[in-house]
């Protein structure tokens, strides 16, 4: 079947099997390999992307279900000049990543947390990230990164594609 969607600001139309998962569509069809797959049971959040302004686990969405949507992955966050998104910047400064496998999903979920609550407490960040597992960082620096990103203002809770929509 045919699916069309805008991924990181670019329009794509492809012929896919109905059962193709959005995560595999992004990785294998579009070659956007940042989005990772860490489980079979919608548990780990490594595959989190933003679809129409909401964080979702792309391993549990069919590409067919995202037909017509706006999708943002980690690759779509930095500015055209390479300027890091406030969340990316905060993850780097606070050492919020080690092996990096959870990171793409964690960053997208963290943007979702701030979209929902622009100035969360530690506890609220932890609850907001309850669907994202990290084996390396013990979450300590991830929590710090999200809270420090929150200080950067509303952009930390938005993807560039939202900002375009808002404009």
């Amino acid at each position, binding site marked *: 079947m045919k699916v069309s969607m805008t991924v990181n600001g670019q329009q794509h139309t492809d012929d896919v099997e109905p059962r193709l998962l959005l995560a595999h569509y992004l990785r294998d069809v579009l070659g956007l390999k940042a989005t990772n797959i860490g489980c079979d049971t919608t548990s780990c959040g490594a595959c989190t992307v933003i679809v129409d302004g909401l964080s979702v686990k792309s391993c549990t969405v069919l590409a067919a279900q995202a037909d017509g949507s706006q999708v943002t992955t980690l690759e779509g966050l930095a500015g055209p000049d390479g300027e890091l998104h406030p969340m990316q910047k905060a993850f780097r400064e606070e050492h919020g990543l080690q092996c990096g496998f959870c990171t793409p999903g964690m960053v997208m979920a963290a943007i979702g947390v701030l979209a929902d609550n622009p100035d969360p407490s530690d506890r609220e960040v932890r609850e907001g990230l309850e669907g*994202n597992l990290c084996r390396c960082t013990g979450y300590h620096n991830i929590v710090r990164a999200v809270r420090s990103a929150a200080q950067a203002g509303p952009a930390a809770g938005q993807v560039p594609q939202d900002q375009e929509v808002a404009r």
Partner: protein
Amino acid sequence: MSILGTRVVRTEDPLFLTRGATYTDDLVDDRLTGALHVTFVRSQVAHGRLLSVDTSAAREAPGVVAVYTAEDCADLAPIPAGLPMVPPAMQRPWLAQGKVRFVGDIVAVVLTEERYQGEDAAELVSVDIDPLPAVVTTADAAAGEVLLFEDAGTNVMATFGEPAPADFFSGCEVVVEQRMVNQRVAPVPLETRAAAAAWGDDGRVTIWCTNQGAQQAKGEIAGWLGMDPARVHLITPDVGGGFGAKIGADPEYAFTAWLAQRAGRPVRWTENRSENLVGMLHGRGQDQTVRIGGRRDGTIEAYSIAVDQDGGAYPRVGIILPTLTMLMAAATYAFPKVHAHGRALATNTTSIGAYRGAGRPEATAAVERAIDLFAAEIGMDPAEVRRKNLVPSFSEPHTTPSGATYDSGEYTAALEKALEAAGYDELRAEQARRRERGEARQLGIGLSTYVEITGADTGLGSAESAELEVHADGTATVLTGTSPHGQGHATAWAMLASDQTGIPVEKITVLHGDTDRIPRGGGTMGSRSLQQGGAAVHQAAVELVALAKQRAAERLEVDAADLELDLAGAGLAVRGTPGAGVTLAELAADEPLLVQTRFEAAAPTFPFGAHVAVVEVDVESGKAELQRLVAVDDAGTIVNPLLAEGQRHGGYAQGVAQALLEEVLYDADGNPQTSTLADYPFVSATELPSFELVDMATPTPINPLGAKGIGEAGTIGSTPAVHNAVIDAVAHLGVRHIDMPTTPMKVWRAIQQAQQGGSNA
């Protein structure tokens, strides 16, 4: 000012944060064009006679190129037991033959054009197994009624030492004994296992895989396949976590090479999580019996531990874990007498390997529980019992009755720092208040002190290689035999090189994990990297500067003694003659400026520390929640506090998870109960507080950096502190011991039993 000791943010991050790292499954490489996808068909039965494997339907499925069973790989000799103490009959066939020995044993392999076709076809392979009784526990294994390897005549994989003599505790006023479980856990690096293989026209195979040490994996794979190692080129791309479970090659990795040859096309394999949770090595898995004896004044006179290590179905590195547990049995204490012995047993379960700490957390968990049991028995504060028995401060090597020689230690200072930072006395007062009021939420305070061994030589030596080359454009390249997978070596090794040469960190590229470029290397495991690999980089930089000095002296026609390092300019300056000098880059333009070196560590190092955990236990439901974790971890000199803290945080989380949550479970037939992340209770952000880190740094004399290992210490210290805290919270209700993980049901039941008058353990 030296860059060492400063919080340099990681150079690897910009790429990781914008494009993502490149893990094995992400590889886009010409050599892998047209690669077939590998899908393993695994046994769903723990123990049984393999009657038949029918692949006919699978062969007809769309996209299937080949399906292989044991008969097809008769050219492959079984994978040997590998360790000299293991009965040779305990070898692993590549594909199960005659018998299956655990849920996850490979019975067939499917090659398909597309990823999705593999799963469809694998479903069509029909496997007929006649089940045998399963050996699930070490007790089952020891009973020996059912054998995994009939030819071995035993389930005992290895034996280490003899039981303690009967009079070992004679003369002690008080002796406490406890059986305890250091439960089997799953390492769960977030990246599952993955590999790819492609043969070149030159008759060499390139294998990509996610692993903690390319050179070791290459050697094993070549050995298993009976190949000349020179024909294997192994590359570890970015690796999404390892935690010990990616040490050494897995049979699946070697298999990709064989499959690619057989199919005449490159192949790739990425397991899914359900496969990972049964196929990848598990960790821990010890049944322990500890005895501790001493006087009522708190002096401990003798301590013994007996270890039954669950080895799983086929011998892997896990079977030597008892030796590390035994080596570290004396822990931080000045016990006059220590006895330890152990054995490893085969069970119809996933093989046990190394998991963050590997053998040392088990030692610490046992002794720290034992101390608390002893304290409870004599009615003394557990902090006081520790104070009375810790090895006093030492800066000359200290040899323990269990045979370890510690480099330096300040155990009492570490404990006092932790107690002070935690506000121990106030915590005890608050605990007393809650007990008095009979509140539903009781406070538990748990302590641990630990010492562990890092950079131990576990058979691969204790040396590491490094190469440093300065280029004419002012950049430099470091080649290292370590194998970072989150630890940040690209940044830390660049700092070490920069510290000596003045070349800015951003201009230094660190490469690892390619056996053609870096033939020798020990990988990253056992918290060895900085003290051996980092020390090698440091040594390379020192040697490079010395070499540059000679060259500069010739070029500038001055005496080498008149040259001094100009760190700001990354060059050599003539002393007293401003403006005269030459940069390393200029020297590199003349002729290559490169050194290769090897650092040999004289001995392992022994980081130590003390943790205080504060938990709240809802005594009505049994649920324990960690409120605080205060941690002193002394790993000697710190090169980059940001990275070292990150290692500690991650270690704590895994340690806490073992105490509170995580456990791999099997039913009585050997069926795994925790083979998805929906069932395996991987610790998430909501069960953890932000941690309270206390700094302490006692340099080691063992290496020029003064550094000890920090990768595993957090795990080792945190587990017993949290475990002790949970039991402490309910001790006033009569509870003496609860095995890990301290799940709500276990805690509730322990309280019930204690209240009904009986001792609960």
